[in-house]
């Protein structure tokens, strides 16, 4: 009898202990704390504003560093550390007026000499850099100097009207070279700590030059293994903001606890066709593929309809640079596609492989849908999934593939979007080559008149579309879940998590 009592006491106390511990692991009070946790699925790595290239890193350091100019969430380029710019008629000299009263995170004042140092460093003009530009787009900068009136003059090797959007590159204190370990900028948040594989912590910059900003005391970028792990954390409350959701996942979220925000991503999802590989080197085959696919169906399968159909290499989100007269060029037309296939000598179709990265579900799903649609014209597409590192090495750099699906990220610089279609461009992984496009692209930076430049872009787009250099699918919508305890968050059409305007909901 005694034994049984002893036994049950032990069992009960053990159970009690377990439950206490379980309860201890429960939710912490969060609402009175003025912080936000952002879930990220890419491991951060580089915090130097001039060597950073990976989108995931850019999102974080957007809050630490600021450039002379800065994009907002509507895609406008606004003055930031500069208050004004004068551009010479041939677009080869840019003279910036530097904002006064701005302090770096280390307490020092922002002076023109800091701007000169930062731009020189980005352009590779500092002694010992061997002239290799850290920000490759600023490679054409010949000299940066401080004028007697405190303005900063940037001279380019030749006129380039497209360089303006790269003056968003971060400004750091003069002589500073330790940005990787201890970032110092002028942004709304200061770098606090980086815990590899776990989180990046930023704290409020009390001396931020924009009065009243930021609202939050602390922002944590927390690394999640993948989207599902992040969603689990989101639903348990340990993450407040989670970007880049797929729409099916977003639909599962409790709308009383999260606001689902979305914006165009300004990305170009492309069914890339290697122009050097048979039978894709035949323009008739590429056109047939374009006519065979139904973009609307793909968008509804992969994004639940949350995407904009693309016919060419540029998203309509680029405004006047885009040519709306191209709309509808490749509306689905199976009989036309079959005709073109027959003309090219492939009336019985052919076998082809699509090498797609398994790291992005949307591209895998797109490839699956494409494969089923291409059957209609006899193309039998095998899907081969590879990891991101392999994709970058074999497909992107090595160009050893037949077809692939990927989204090309872009800023608001149209030259960036179309630059890769030049024959010798490093990003021309589809091996497209057309001397007309090469000539037009070389002419654009030398053209200062906006209307004229826009017309040149339209010409390039028309040629790319006529050549059916690849099949363009969609500009997928970016969906972000934000906890209802926060407000003021904006989804940017580029890789940015702007935390300066985010604040607690007051009621």
């Amino acid at each position, binding site marked *: 009898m005694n034994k049984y009592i002893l036994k049950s006491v032990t069992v009960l106390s053990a159970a009690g202990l*377990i439950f*206490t*511990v*379980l309860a*201890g*692991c*429960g*939710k912490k009070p969060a609402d009175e704390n003025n912080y936000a946790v952002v879930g990220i699925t890419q*491991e951060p*790595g*580089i915090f130097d504003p001039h*060597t950073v*290239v*990976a*989108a995931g890193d850019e999102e974080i350091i957007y809050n630490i560093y600021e450039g002379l100019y800065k994009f907002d969430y509507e895609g406008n380029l606004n003055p930031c550390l500069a208050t004004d710019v004068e551009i010479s008629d041939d677009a080869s000299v840019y003279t910036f007026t530097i904002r006064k009263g701005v302090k770096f995170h280390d307490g020092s004042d922002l002076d023109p000499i800091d701007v000169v140092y930062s731009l020189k460093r980005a352009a590779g003009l500092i002694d010992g850099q061997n002239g*290799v*530009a*850290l920000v*490759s787009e600023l490679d054409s900068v010949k000299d940066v100097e401080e004028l007697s009136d405190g303005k900063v003059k940037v001279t380019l090797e030749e006129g380039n009207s497209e360089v303006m959007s790269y003056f968003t590159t971060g400004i750091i204190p003069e002589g500073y070279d330790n940005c*990787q370990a201890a970032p110092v900028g002028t942004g709304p948040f200061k770098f606090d700590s980086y*815990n*590899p*594989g*776990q989180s990046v912590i930023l704290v409020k910059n009390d001396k931020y030059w924009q009065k009243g900003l930021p609202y939050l005391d602390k922002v944590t970028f927390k*690394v*999640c*293994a*993948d989207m599902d*792990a*992040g969603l*689990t*954390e989101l*639903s*348990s*409350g*340990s993450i407040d903001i989670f970007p880049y959701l797929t729409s099916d996942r977003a639909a599962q979220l409790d709308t009383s606890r999260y606001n689902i925000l979305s914006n165009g991503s300004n990305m170009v999802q492309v069914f890339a066709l290697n122009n050097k590989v048979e039978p894709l080197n035949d323009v008739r085959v590429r056109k047939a593929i374009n006519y065979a696919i139904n973009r609307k169906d793909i968008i509804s399968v992969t994004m639940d309809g949350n995407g904009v159909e693309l016919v060419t290499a540029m998203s309509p989100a680029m405004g006047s640079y885009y040519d709306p007269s191209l709309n509808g060029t490749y509306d689905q037309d199976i009989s036309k596609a079959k005709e073109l296939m027959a003309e090219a000598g492939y009336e019985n179709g052919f076998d082809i492989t699509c090498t797609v990265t398994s*790291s992005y579900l949307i591209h895998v799903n797109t490839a699956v849908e494409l494969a089923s649609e291409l059957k209609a014209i006899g193309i039998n597409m095998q899907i081969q999934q590879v*990891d*991101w*590192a*392999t994709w*970058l*090495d*074999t497909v*992107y*750099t*090595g160009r050893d593939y037949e077809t692939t699906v*990927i989204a090309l*990220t872009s800023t608001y610089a149209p030259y960036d979007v179309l630059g890769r279609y030049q024959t010798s461009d*490093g*990003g021309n992984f589809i091996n497209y080559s057309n001397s007309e496009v090469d000539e037009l692209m070389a002419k654009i930076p030398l053209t200062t008149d906006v209307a004229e430049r826009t017309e040149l872009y339209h010409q390039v787009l028309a040629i790319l579309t006529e050549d059916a250099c690849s099949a363009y699918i969609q500009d997928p919508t970016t969906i972000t879940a934000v906890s209802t305890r926060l407000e003021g968050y904006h989804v940017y059409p580029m890789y940015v998590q702007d935390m300066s305007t985010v604040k607690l909901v007051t009621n």
Partner: protein
Amino acid sequence: MQSKASYLIGKTVELILTLLVVSLLVFAAFSVIPGDTARVMLGPDATESQVELLRAELGLDKPLAARYLSWLLGLLTFNPGKSYAYNVSVSGLIAQRLPVTIGMSIIAMIMVILISYPLAVLSSRKPGRLGDQICSVIGHVLFAIPPYVASLLLILLTSSVFSLLTVGNYVSPSEDFFEYIGCLLLPSFAVALPKIAMSFKFLRSSIIEQKSADYVRTAKSHGMSDLKILIRHVLPNSNVSSITIISIILSDILGGSLIVEQVFNLPGLGRLLLSAISRRDFPLLSGIVFYLALVTVLLYFISDIAASFADPRIRLK
């Protein structure tokens, strides 16, 4: 007959050779798979010159064989080098992640012993009875569930159906020890489940076998109680042979926890390993694999030695 010393030396040589082969395998696998660390770090938008710059900075322009040799030399001086992607020492990174993986393994092992031993003893009291049969059937089912499936089911049950606990909110032991244990309970249980079934099955049949042995009948005829026979004779006899099973289970648990960490979003060795692979971080990957191999081989090593000391007949084989 072999002496204890020569047995130990033989086993130690075996241990070193195994580790060498493991590191060679990692090296071989790495030289075959495509992918470039610098390109992965910089992404597709980086230009070739930027990638080259980083490659030179990281020392990636040297051939992999040279990097492997310098890594091996570094190991001899207990310095496994610096991770490319994180730019900090590999040993520091591993040490930082150990509380999760080791904590989970220990808790899971305790769960295995605490649950499977009493169940096996109870079930083997009257084999074939309803209770025993139910235990066996459940055991078969649990044995068949891989840890990651168990993890998903557990997350679904605890966080969505009963909303008992927060998943993925990791607390480090230095912050709050009890919360740390609490956060690891569920993932540990997911890892432990199939092992509980395995240990239960093994122990149950071992006890049943021992029970029919002659010495049990002798002890009974001497008037010893069933409980005493079980504790003094049957369990020790089944235990000696289960040292090996325990070490197998421990290394399985270590492997299982690597996957379960990923599902529960815990910052352990498993996630570090995956990130090292996907970012082609050779020093980090080989460091982790070497460490895991070391732990596994050491476990077998210790269990072999322990078993040989407990039962000298093993050394003769």
